[in-house]
């Protein structure tokens, strides 16, 4: 079947989609957006987290057919999504731009020279990325929390990220990163 939906602000069309296929598979294998990670395929790990009509969900548990006509934001569109939120415009990210997205710029260690969402920069600055596999899901989940809760307590952060597993960091640096992003967001206002 064919599925039409919006990804990172731009209309997309996926063809030859199998009826039992997940949104995650469509994003990774049909649209060439491997940012959302495939790990547990049962909603346990959160590494495939995307926004579906603004709401964080595990894309491995959304049937592709269910997203017809709906709006998806992946980690590849997070920088533009955050920018649009802060400046109130909505320009979106083209599929080619999204495919070409790399957290590299001129310096892969500091994120310098590339456009990052504040939460992405905070993860780099706080050293919250080790192997990086869980990072996209955590970024999407943390960004969504900061959108509606700009001054989270530690308990709020832990709860918002309770559906995202990380096996490297022990979560402390991730907590630091989210606190940092919240503090910077507060300064900016």
């Amino acid at each position, binding site marked *: *079947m064919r599925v039409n939906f919006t990804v990172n602000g731009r209309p997309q069309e996926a063809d030859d989609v*199998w*009826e*039992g296929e*997940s949104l995650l598979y469509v994003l990774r294998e049909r649209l060439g957006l491997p940012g959302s990670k495939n790990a547990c*395929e*049962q*909603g*346990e790990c*959160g590494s495939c*987290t995307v926004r579906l009509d603004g*709401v*964080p*969900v*595990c894309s*491995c*548990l*959304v*049937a592709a*057919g*269910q997203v*017809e006509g709906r709006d998806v934001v992946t980690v590849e569109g997070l920088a533009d999504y955050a920018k649009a939120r802060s400046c109130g415009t909505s320009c979106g990210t083209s599929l080619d731009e999204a495919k070409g997205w790399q957290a590299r710029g001129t310096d892969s260690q500091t994120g310098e020279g590339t456009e990052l969402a504040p939460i992405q920069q905070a993860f780099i600055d706080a050293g919250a990325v080790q192997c990086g596999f869980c990072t996209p899901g955590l970024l999407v*989940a943390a960004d969504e929390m900061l959108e509606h809760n700009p001054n989270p307590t530690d308990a709020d952060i832990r*709860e*918002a990220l*309770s*559906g*995202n597993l990380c096996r490297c960091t022990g979560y402390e640096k991730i907590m630091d990163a989210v606190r940092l992003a919240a503090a910077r967001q507060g300064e900016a206002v």
Partner: protein
Amino acid sequence: MDFLRPASWEEALAAKAEHPTAVPIAGGTDVMVEINFDHRRPEYLLDLNRVADLTEWEVGEDTVRLGASVPYTKIMENLRAELPGLALASHTVASPQIRNRGGVGGNLGTASPAGDAHPALLAAGAEVEVESVRGTRLIPIDAFYTGVKRNALAADELIKSVHIKKADGPQQYSKVGTRNAMVIAVCAFGLALHPETRTVRTGIGSAAPTPVRAKAAEEFLNAALEEGGFWDNGKIITPSVAKQFAELCSGACNPIDDVRGTASYRRHAVGVMARRTLTWTWESYRGARRHTEGAA
């Protein structure tokens, strides 16, 4: 596999009548796991996401009519006053991502003894509104669970909503697991005080082939509270009464040993949860009583 995408409830019922083997999918948090793991290859998937009525709820005089697909997140955010037990239970479901998609209709459809909503529904008192092209019926929650992952639905029926009694007193919910998120209950317990009828109701999860009420424990406690004039005098519950209640709740279990826990641990833990939730709800009832008396 065929993907059926009804745009309305009527279309969904027609599709289910035409294809009784169609598997309804709403939040997908159960169905997609089975498909991803190749445990299930349904001939038809019946997507209910486009049926807007299913995500709505209505607060009536005595009951809340909760659409089958209202996500747990919305229950926590909007119905804590009317359905405190179910709101607490909803908060123990998996993670924010799962709570944003899953709802009570899916819990009822899957009818796993470990479904988090069941003990809260049993304790509050509820009826499941199911419909087919043949008509609508309301199934009392006590008659809904018929076996392990079996329910009272006919092949052509879909779950439309749950009519849950609005709380008329304190409610509590307790769940045992290895951590605070992403756990399937080792066992769970729901308790609701109903001061208007001077009764209590219970619900036990994951400790019998189906979710069950501890009816002998309820009857014992109803009689003990009545006899001691507790509803009127608002005294603290006698420890011996709480202990007996806990033992009867344990006795209502019929658990198995499995990877999550042993049968004897489950029996024990249900007793502990029964005693604790009784203390919590009763203290809250006493507090509310004092408050009303103070105001009068």
